[in-house]
């Protein structure tokens, strides 16, 4: 099976979707001629023309707002916001408009759009190119929120998102674009060509939204992770020798509740990890759900390992980023509790 980077897999998903459905259009800042700053849309304008893949003015609210209008017309726009850090001007369009159009119009108008954006840190991007705003979207009824962790899933989930009848926020962990990253920033990057999840089938396939994947089966403790933190958790389990079961959530909303509950009931312990800040982060939701559903199976408090409640720092990036040492300590503490 061919191996692809996550960038190539995402591009392939849009290519496959555009070939199958004339109503799929792709646009955003630098997306058309140049193919996007991360090159995710490279070649799509040459292949499908300027009517279906084009550059947008630097106005995120305009990008998402026009996409909502296009969706109401009957198109399926898949738009790019250049960095998740730049999505805030579009927040009103996403929250008040895209997420509520179906409900507000009693199904008369719907909003099948995908808003793609690179998320997360690990690239020395500082405070405006490193944020993880997923919890701002999981708090909104009417949205779906997806975070792939590898090229295979990125393609399957993006095709599923484009075909989904409701608005999907598609967060692409940018540190994973070219290879898995376990937080050992001092080591050379492993390319996707050397990882089995770099294997991406050609043509059309979907990875269903709302289904988590167990990346590492284990009996001692459940680790709930998504995006880059899946690999950090794997490294932490390896380095501590703790038999952790690592669940890659893949879709945060709707959440695969059954997989999470079954695992925690089995292990009796749970550690939640994410890059985003702690307070009111998605980890708080996961922790509450586990407590509500698995309380009598728990042998230790649910622990969260996350970014600190500070702006994403530049010089202290590796002090902020919840790396394998911090996750490993949390695993040990949870086992000893």
């Amino acid at each position, binding site marked *: 099976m061919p191996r692809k980077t996550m960038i190539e897999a995402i591009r392939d998903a849009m290519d496959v979707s555009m070939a199958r459905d004339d109503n799929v259009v792709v646009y955003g800042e630098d997306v058309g001629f140049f193919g996007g700053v991360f090159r995710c849309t490279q070649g799509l304008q040459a292949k499908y023309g300027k009517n279906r893949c084009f550059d*947008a003015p630097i106005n995120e609210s305009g990008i998402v707002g026009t996409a909502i209008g296009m969706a109401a017309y009957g198109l399926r726009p898949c738009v790019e916001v250049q960095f998740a850090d730049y999505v805030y001007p579009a927040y009103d369009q996403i929250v008040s408009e895209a997420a509520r159009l179906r409900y507000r119009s009693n199904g008369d108008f719907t909003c099948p759009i995908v808003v793609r954006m690179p998320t997360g840190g690990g690239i020395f991007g500082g405070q405006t190119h490193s944020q993880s705003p997923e919890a701002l979207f999981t708090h909104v009824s009417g949205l779906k929120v997806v975070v792939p962790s590898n090229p295979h899933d990125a393609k399957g989930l993006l095709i599923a998102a484009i075909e989904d009848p409701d608005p999907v926020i598609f967060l692409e962990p940018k540190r994973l674009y070219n290879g898995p990253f376990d937080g050992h920033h001092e080591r050379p990057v492993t390319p996707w060509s050397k990882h089995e999840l770099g294997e991406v089938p050609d043509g059309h396939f979907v990875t269903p939204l709302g289904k988590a994947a167990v990346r590492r089966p284990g009996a001692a403790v459940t680790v709930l992770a998504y995006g880059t933190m899946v690999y950090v958790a794997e490294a932490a389990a390896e380095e501590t020798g703790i038999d952790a079961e690592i669940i890659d959530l893949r879709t945060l909303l709707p959440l695969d509740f059954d997989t999470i509950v079954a695992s925690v009931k089995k292990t009796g312990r749970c550690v939640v990890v994410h890059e985003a800040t702690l307070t009111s982060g998605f980890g708080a939701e996961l922790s509450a759900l586990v407590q509500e559903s698995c309380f009598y199976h728990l042998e230790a408090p649910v622990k969260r390992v996350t970014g600190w409640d500070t702006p994403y720092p530049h010089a202290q990036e590796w002090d902020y980023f919840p790396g394998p040492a911090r996750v490993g300590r949390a695993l040990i503490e949870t086992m000893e509790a």
Partner: protein
Amino acid sequence: MYSSKEHGFFSISGNLATQYVQAVGWAMASAIKGDTRIAAGWIGDGSTAESDFHAALVFASTYKAPVVLNVVNNQWAISTFQGIARGGSGTFAARGLGFGIPSLRVDGNDYPAVHAVAKWAVERARRNLGPTLIEHVTYRAGAHSTSDDPSAYRPKAESDAWPLGDPVIRLKNHLIHRGVWSDERHAQAEAEILDTVISAQKEAEAHGTLHSGNKPSMRDMFEGVYETMPPHLRRQRQQAGV
């Protein structure tokens, strides 16, 4: 909220200016598909201060979208005079010129003038010549909402002094002057229209009101958030006991 896809009438949101951009997007989609249908959007003088107004104009201009962008300048944004939104710009129509969008300013209380301007703008859009901005100059004689009290921020007699008059009376006088209308026919038309509105209201209220009951069920509240109800909403509906 109300909408009618069948009639091309989009669902209205309470968030100001957000739908101006969506009208441009709808028009872009029509152009992308080689369709001849066009979009029209309306915004108030106060809401032109929103970023989305400017987003709509830049997208309409860049993609020459077949859209008619109307600004209803009724002088008052709740309690603030239109100058607060307009700033140093002489008119709201002038806003469009900075984006290279042909822009017109019309007496919004003059029915034939509004009709002529709208027809011109619609024709431009249909011929794929791009967007038009129209400022309709009018006056909000009533209150902004049921909880608003205009006497607290403007002279009580201001609306009587408004020089452009009532658009319905002006149209009536114009038609009578042309010999194609009369006071009797006008009174009859008003009675018929009132009757239509009251019957529509009765029909709508027959489905239920907040006071009379016959509300949609609590169970219905969970429908239509997504096309297919996800498991967490099903669980919450069960928890709610419906």
